[in-house]
């Protein structure tokens, strides 16, 4: 195989590049949100766009989430392809009516006449001490409601490729990026926030999970940070002679059921890890999938590791206690393989 030159980008630069390429290609694409202009988005996802495209296509809005998400719906119905940034997913509370009653349902209720090609981009996740209203992922909250695709890429490569897919998709897509994978200077520096990203536009399909590590003894399913934690845990498991297969879900909706079921056919053990609340969450959905369609492939009950049902604590040590990490995954996995 030819070794291509590595071009390293952080998560936020990968997103901004995807948007830039699509804005160059299609004049209907534009960006709206709080501090997305000169500031470049508080997590850097729109950096440089204002300078290139100006205030007509990169629009700083008042702090009116209902207004700009609702306006994106109107603009999309009129043929535009808006990308709107909800600064933190936690703020969905002030604008959820526009999201789930309108963005998600108007295409359906119009009998398929109205298309809403909107990307609702939003920052998720904790781990940097930002307290209960700024640290949630809320993956399941969005994934539960029909009418929107929901993606949560884990690497700069996928962030770019899936953003391009999202922009070109005729359905509303909720595009979640994880704050700690953006490569921001004021956060802990993670290797996972930097990765190879080709210069040109390319697509990573929505609805396809990725086996990021092959193994034979146990399947670990994660998304965003928990994928990276799972990979780290897998290294440690290997030292104990256990080969873990790690699946990066990447899309919550549509869910790639095949990849998961294929994997448990091979490993016969399933651990699902999530940086969202345990109850009624993504881990439950996948456990149900395994129970319904893969029960006879399993040698042991499914295990779930997620945030206990408490709001995310502000203090660092307390927060670290509730968030999944490589160590916790390792321990859960060890218990599971010894069952």
């Amino acid at each position, binding site marked *: 195989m030819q070794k291509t030159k590595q071009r390293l980008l952080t998560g936020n630069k990968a997103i901004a590049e995807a948007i830039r390429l699509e804005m160059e290609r299609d004049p209907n694409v534009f960006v709206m949100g709080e501090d997305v202009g*000169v500031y470049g988005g508080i997590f850097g996802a729109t950096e440089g766009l204002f300078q290139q495209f100006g205030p007509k296509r990169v629009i700083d809005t008042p*702090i009116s989430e209902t207004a700009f998400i609702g306006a994106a719906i109107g603009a999309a119905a009129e043929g535009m392809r808006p990308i709107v940034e909800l600064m933190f997913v936690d703020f969905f509370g002030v604008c959820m009516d526009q999201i789930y009653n309108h963005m998600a349902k108007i295409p359906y209720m119009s009998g398929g006449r109205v298309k809403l090609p909107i990307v609702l981009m939003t920052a998720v996740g904790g781990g940097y001490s930002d307290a209960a209203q700024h640290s949630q992922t809320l993956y399941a909250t969005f994934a539960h409601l029909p009418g929107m695709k929901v993606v949560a890429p884990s690497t700069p490569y996928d962030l770019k490729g899936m953003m391009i897919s999202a922009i070109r998709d005729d359905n509303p897509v909720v595009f979640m990026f994880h704050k700690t994978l953006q490569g921001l200077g004021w956060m802990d520096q993670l290797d996972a926030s930097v990765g190879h990203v080709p210069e040109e536009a390319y697509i990573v399909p929505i609805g396809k999970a990725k086996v990021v590590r092959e193994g034979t003894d146990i399947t670990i399913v994660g998304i965003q940070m928990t994928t990276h934690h799972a990979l780290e845990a897998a290294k440690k498991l290997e030292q104990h002679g256990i080969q873990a297969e790690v699946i990066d879900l990447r899309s919550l909706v549509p869910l790639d059921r095949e990849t998961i079921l294929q994997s448990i056919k091979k490993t016969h053990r399933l651990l699902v890890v999530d940086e969202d609340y345990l109850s009624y969450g993504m881990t439950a959905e996948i456990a149900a999938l395994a129970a319904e369609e893969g029960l006879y492939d399993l040698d042991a009950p499914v295990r779930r590791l997620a945030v*206990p049902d408490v709001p995310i604590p502000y*203090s660092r040590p*307390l927060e670290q*206690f509730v968030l999944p990490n490589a160590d916790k995954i390792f321990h859960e996995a060890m218990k599971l393989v010894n069952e």
Partner: protein
Amino acid sequence: MFDQSQLQFEMIQLLDENGNGDEKELASFSDEFLVTLYRWMRKARVIDERLLKMQRQGRIGTYAPFSGQEAAQIGSVLALEKDDWIFPTYREIAACLAHGLPLAQIFRYVRGHLSGGRTPEHLNIFPIQIIIGAQTLHATGCAWATKLKGETQVSVCYFGDGATSQGDFHEALNFASVYQVPVIFFCQNNQYAISVPVHRQTASRTIAQKAVAYGMKGVLVDGNDALAVYKTMKKAVDAARNGEGPILIEALTYRLGPHTTSDDPTKYRNAEEAEQWRSKKDPLRRLRVLLERRGIWTEEKEEAWVAQVNDEVTAAYEEAAADETGSIVDAFNYVYGKPSKLLQEQQEDARRKRKQEVK
């Protein structure tokens, strides 16, 4: 047809940038009051600067400095009765302190202590709000309740210029006015919402004028003039307590520092602008000029006061840092009045894991 240019909101000011004003008006403030007011403002500034430093040293979490807004916060709170309610945001640390919140509690808050958001029983201070605009509704409801119960407290809701773009703000003003509840909406227009300047936030010439649409009184005051803020607030509070309904006050001020410690203001505003406000319009300086003219403040007093406050800060920090209560096990107790069975199981699990970690 009516145009907003027909709305005249003159800015109330008693003390100009150089510490001058109408002598008769100024004479109505006692020496004692002026010294108290100034001490609070100086204290707030010292605390703010120390908190900023401590954040840089990694001793506290993300912090939203309020330097430049001392007159608006202290001036307004000193006009309240002890049992009046305040609804602060992350920016109102000075207001919280002046309304009685112990400094050590502020440190618990900024250190992310589990009980950091808990105000002492006897204090009517609502938990600090970070979701923009939400507290406007809570303050309205609280004021409504005091009215229904026949109590005398008023509720004071703090928020920034950016918050006036939220639906919550508009619904709150409408409600408060329809039900004529004793709430004061106190907007500190510090001219920026993170990177967005106020003229990109609203096309209204003033924020005060927004009151008119809701059939409510509105007033614009120089937010860097503590005396004007105090007097305006006092009038508003007395009226609200008297059953004359809500009011919207716009205090025009300026945020001298960054939005929070993770912000870099040079990205969106020129340093000169901030420097102008710092050197020419500082709320502390003009009050100090007045005090010195009256012969009730000196450089020695200033030094002694700053030293005393610094000691207080150190002591409060140490108290909070030494507080070892509030482990992860306790977190489960606050989610509901009593944890459900499932939550109790999760709590047990946490207890077990914590023991293993401690070992």
